[in-house]
């Protein structure tokens, strides 16, 4: 592997996280969560490092990273908006929220703006089914969301 400064940092961070969690049973998911919490995503270089540290094949690690929706291969935007598209929110107009966000930002679900300001994603259920439709903005769940309010949230994210 070529070593640039970035790689060294990644290697050190991933190695330290792996060492901290190695004593747990089946530690790969806690490790991947910790890497994403620290680096904002799970960089490609992490796969080989984890394979070595945990005595797994690269295919095993890659398989786990790619299986779970949570693990990002690329950094997200500075603001992440997740729109709940599960049934309870559909019953209160989740599709209208999705359309509103798309019309306002030009982003399809799962896309990040080129300037890195905003990521819009779908999520299936935030457990707020009696106060839908729900949207999560940078980890904060907001109930009874309206298209207007969502537009102002994405506008603010894009302009900041």
């Amino acid at each position: 592997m070529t070593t640039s400064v970035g790689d060294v940092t990644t290697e050190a961070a991933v190695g330290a996280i792996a060492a901290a969690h190695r004593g747990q049973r089946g530690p790969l998911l806690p490790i991947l969560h910790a890497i994403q919490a620290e680096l904002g995503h799970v960089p490609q270089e992490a796969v080989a490092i984890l394979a070595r540290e945990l005595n797994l094949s690269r295919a095993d690690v890659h398989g786990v990273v790619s299986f779970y929706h949570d693990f990002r291969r690329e950094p997200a935007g500075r603001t992440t908006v997740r729109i709940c598209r599960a049934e309870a929110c559909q019953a209160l107009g989740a599709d209208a929220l999705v359309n509103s966000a798309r019309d306002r930002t030009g982003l399809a679900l799962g896309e990040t703006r080129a300037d890195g300001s905003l990521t819009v994603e779908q999520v299936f259920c935030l457990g707020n089914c009696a106060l839908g439709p729900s949207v999560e903005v940078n980890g904060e769940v907001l109930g009874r969301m309206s298209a207007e309010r969502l537009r102002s949230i994405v506008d603010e994210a894009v302009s900041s």
Partner: protein
Amino acid sequence: MTRTSNSPVTVYVPRDSAARSVGADAVAEAIRRAADARNLPITLVRNGSRGMLWLEPLVEVATPEGRIGYGPVAPSDVADLLAAGFLDGADHPLRLGVVDELPWLARQNRVTFTRVGIIDPISPEDYERHGGLVGLRRALDLPPSDVVAAVTESGLRGRGGAGFPAGIKWKTVLDCADALKFVCCNADEGDSGTFADRMVMEGDPFMLIEGMTIAAHAVGAREGYVYIRSEYPDAVATMRAAIAIARDRHWLGERILGSDLTFDLHVRVGAGAYICGEETSMLESLEGKRGVVRAKPPIPAIEGLFGKPTVVNNVLTLATVPVILADGAKAYQELGVERSRGTQVFQLGGNIAHGGIVETAFGVTLRELIEDYGGGTLSGRPVRTVQVGGPLGAYLPTSQFDLPMDYEAFAAAGAMLGHGGVVVFDDTVDMAAQARFAMEFCAAESCGKCTPCRVGSVRGVEVIDRIVAGEQRDENLALLEDLCELMTDGSLCAMGGLTPMPVRSAVTHFSDDFLTRGEGTA
């Protein structure tokens, strides 16, 4: 002001994430600041939610008459509430009365949710004062087989959806001779319309810890895991805080409550895969692997986590165990109907005026839940359908609203009770779109192990698109039915096996929605 003493008034503002989603944190902060500014001593408790979610943020004030509720409160209401004297329970347009006496709550039978919304969730003193640990202390005085017998006798069935008798599962694990066994709590509550597990973990986490500890004693396990979905960060934080407190108090760890029992508990966080709510997929995920479903047999009770005998139960199942031990199996068994014993925690969501938690004995009808408790739709339009039991549950037409809510009655009607989620839709719903979504969701969330689920769901979306577009409608409807039959019979787990349930129910009960659309609308 009628208050004479200067002792602090206890004010409750929920910390439940549903309450927070509509501004509970800002309300709590506004109350704290306003009380400080006026030199009014208060004790602010961040309780769980009472489950009357349309009233959130529901602020309660402790008075000699009981806890008086005000809601829904916005931060801008706080100055007005204080001026009106709400710290003494005074009148105000937002005043609801004594919360325990509100008909919506008073007519419920809260057995599992008895403390949720009442106590400070991470106060061990509150927990014990309200009946906590009685069940565990009683269990520790009994030999494991008697604990298993009590759970069996209570009729408690798995609340995750499958409804398997908990005691029988526990007996299988107890009868295994292995030195290493596990207790795993499935808190991967991914079904849309369900939030009871989340509310237990956020509102009464010690109850789940106590239930898992009783299970550990009953089956001879020393290690447990709570697998919580990542979409529930508040539940993760509350459970972790409660586990740390429990360890400090010797409610977990070595020699629990002075007994010979050693048991420790860990929280593991999922990673956004719906399929990990399937128990074998959850076990794979706990082992650090892709959440791919295992073939059964072997059953997890014999070969579960890391191949060891494992109890896997849902949050509500394990959370109900302490009260069964505390009050006796008979008291629990006397509730309910037929083979559905005890209470079920129904969750009313979607397009509903009064959504929230209704815990009541099995046998209540859908109509009572939707009309009497739920107050009809939020939009004010007529109810057209409800989906019961999550994304894999059937869409029921209003003609079936008199069905009693019990496992067998629902199964006989081609539906399922599942985890007790009830999602209401008004008459603007497009049932072909809902059927298509069921297939789309299955395609997105399938673990990919078996072909009927992985490929069938993709084909299902395509076939429904062709039906709605009017391409050989009758032939394609027959093809869809054939595909549904294949998925039902040929899938490895409930994901592919039950996805046809919402699809078929939509086709059966709402066939008009599958008629050809006008030009260009398909």
